[in-house]
């Protein structure tokens, strides 16, 4: 046993003495979806081809593990690059002084002009702390064949049409909307869109910043509209029992027609179903209110404690190039933030791109825009509301109590 120990330890020592070569670039990432993984591997391979003297060490985590590990490695032995999300999620770490100011990269590469849509999401008090590589639109993925079966000829553009589509689908024995709320966040997509369509982007931004009470009349109006859908049996039953991925089979089996979601779902439709899937944006509720969209942005950041910041900056500049962004976003089924890059020629990417192009403003997503603790309580409330709409007053009071705890009394 002791001999074994010595041998094993010797091997171990040899293996761990290989760190710290001059031009190692360590990147820790949470991009573990199959498409994300592929996109990152390609991006790194291209970068290494362009800079042969740099060796990228890629450490991939799943998202939940990454959240735990990140809080450890950022304050201790930080990597040179991380993947994370723009908006409030980034700001949390900026406020802790853990992310590097990369405004110089933005200046040098002219990114303010090249990526106008994501400037504000990447900025805290006028300085940029990350470089986005992809963003994406949310919207309805629906099955054309099921719509036809229910006698629906065109996609809904107004709230009335949307209710009518649901009624027709229900009459044909098809549940209009599938959703899995076990992971909570799919509910937040609904809240975001309803609030932005009813109360507009400015109000939504204020609510996300904790400047409006959740017990406000305008917030209540959002839930009145939402309750119309719940009482008209729009959603699949027992949705708190399914993760968002487990709710997808209803659509693939033809039992349900629509899913309000983002492009990472596209690769999960089996080939024959994917042929029938199309995309439409969230319908207009109040024509007087502008179009605001959720467009979550994924980006690269340099930790403050990184050792090789110089090469990390090279990587940021490389990843921001138009042709690189074209390729990365296409692999991800997402959109390139660089306006000189081209959007993948497919109906989902093009549809989302067109919708974001005509939007009056974009937000990140509920759990990326507001405080993480508030987001959790809020989304638990949304989930409960979708099961028991009559409890709305108690739910809103609970969310408001959490908002007040975090952002203070109004």
């Amino acid at each position, binding site marked *: *046993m*002791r001999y*074994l*120990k010595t041998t*094993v*330890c010797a*091997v*171990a*020592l040899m*293996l*761990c003495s290989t*760190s710290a070569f001059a031009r190692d670039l*360590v990147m*820790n990432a*949470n*991009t*573990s*979806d*199959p498409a*994300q*993984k592929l996109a990152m591997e390609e991006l790194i391979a291209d970068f290494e081809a362009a800079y042969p003297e740099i060796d990228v*060490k*890629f*450490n*991939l*985590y*799943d*998202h939940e*593990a990454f959240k*735990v*590990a990140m809080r*450890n*490695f950022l304050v*201790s*032995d930080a*990597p040179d690059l991380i993947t994370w999300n723009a908006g409030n999620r980034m700001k949390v770490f900026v406020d802790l002084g853990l992310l590097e100011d990369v405004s110089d990269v933005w200046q040098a590469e002219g990114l303010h002009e090249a990526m106008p849509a994501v400037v504000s999401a990447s900025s805290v008090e006028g300085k940029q702390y990350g470089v986005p590589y992809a963003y994406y639109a949310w919207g309805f993925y629906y099955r054309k064949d099921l719509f036809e079966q229910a006698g629906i000829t065109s996609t809904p553009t107004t709230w009335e049409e949307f209710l009518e589509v649901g009624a027709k689908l229900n009459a044909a024995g098809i549940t209009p909307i599938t959703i899995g709320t076990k992971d909570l966040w799919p509910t937040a997509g609904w809240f975001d869109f309803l609030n932005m369509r009813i109360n507009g982007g400015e109000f939504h931004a204020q609510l996300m910043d904790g400047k409006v009470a959740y017990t406000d009349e305008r917030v209540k109006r959002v839930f009145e509209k939402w309750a119309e859908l719940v009482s008209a049996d729009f959603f699949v039953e027992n949705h708190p029992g399914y993760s*968002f*991925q487990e709710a*997808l*089979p*209803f659509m*693939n*089996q033809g039992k349900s027609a629509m899913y309000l979601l*983002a492009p*990472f*779902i596209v*690769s*999960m*439709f*089996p*080939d024959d179903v994917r042929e029938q899937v199309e995309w439409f944006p969230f319908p207009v509720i109040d024509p007087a209110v502008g179009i605001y969209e959720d467009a979550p942005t994924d980006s690269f950041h340099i930790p403050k404690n990184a050792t090789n910041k110089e090469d990390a900056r090279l990587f940021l500049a490389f990843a921001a190039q138009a042709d690189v962004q074209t390729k990365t976003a296409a692999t991800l089924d997402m959109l390139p933030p660089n306006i000189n890059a081209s959007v993948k020629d497919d109906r989902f990417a093009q549809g989302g791109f067109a919708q974001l192009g005509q939007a009056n403003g974009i937000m990140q997503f509920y759990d990326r825009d507001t405080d993480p603790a508030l987001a959790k309580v809020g989304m638990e409330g949304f989930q409960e509301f979708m099961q028991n709409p009559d409890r709305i007053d108690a739910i809103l009071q609970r969310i408001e109590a959490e908002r007040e705890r975090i952002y203070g009394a109004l």
Partner: protein
Amino acid sequence: MFPRPIQERSRSRQLMYKVALPISLIIWLLPMIAIVATAGRSLSDLNRGNYWGMPSEWAFIENFAKVFGSSSIGTYLLNSVIITLPSIAGALFLSTLAGAGLALYKFRGRFLILALFIAGNFVPFQILMIPVRQLTLDLGVYDTYWGVILFQIAFQTGFCTFFMRNFIAELPFELVEAARAEGVGEWQILVHIIVPLVRPALAALAVLQFTFIWNDFFWPLILIQSDELRPITLGLTVLKGQYISSFNLLAAGSLIAALPPVMMFFAMQKHFIAGLTLGASKG
């Protein structure tokens, strides 16, 4: 004797037993069956919600090939071995020494020391996260095998010492006295008398520790960053996506990861049970 052998029961009882046993066994094993079944399905089957029916195509080999192809699972397995074996050896070595010390020598405060070892087991290990991370950084063993190995040895020694101390205390003390009367040195007593006698306890502990350390996810997550140093528990999570997961690959990977502890258990089953029930029959 309890439980009474089923043969002594009435015919109807025996019949009930024979019917109920397979049913409860299947219910008990359902999660395991689900994992095996999922490992043999294609992703499109899962996306269609075909979890329990006949798979449209058998994808066992394909899935396992993908697990080996798309992640460095071979390296992860090797890393698990590199971390687990020295940790077990270290914990057993230290706990035998400490256990013998506490059991054989009557000195003041020995109960307090034993109580400290036991109390250590009640500390929720998560609260050690930040101090341990800082310690490994200061020692220069952060993001190396050593960081995890040293911590596992330190943490597991508490339980092992408690276990070994009780086992050694059960041994007839006359053996030690006789050896001392013959003029045998204390070290010789430990090596030639105590260790051979506690071998069953060491074997049981080794199996137990193997499953503990092999299955540990938390400490490698905190103390290791580099992909090439990760053990299998950490490596497997890479198969879990940020949004979407290939459950079939996850299931296949989990089966691979679970195999060594299961094999270890079957190989050492006798010791394992003996270890768990050690002293249990004593009145």
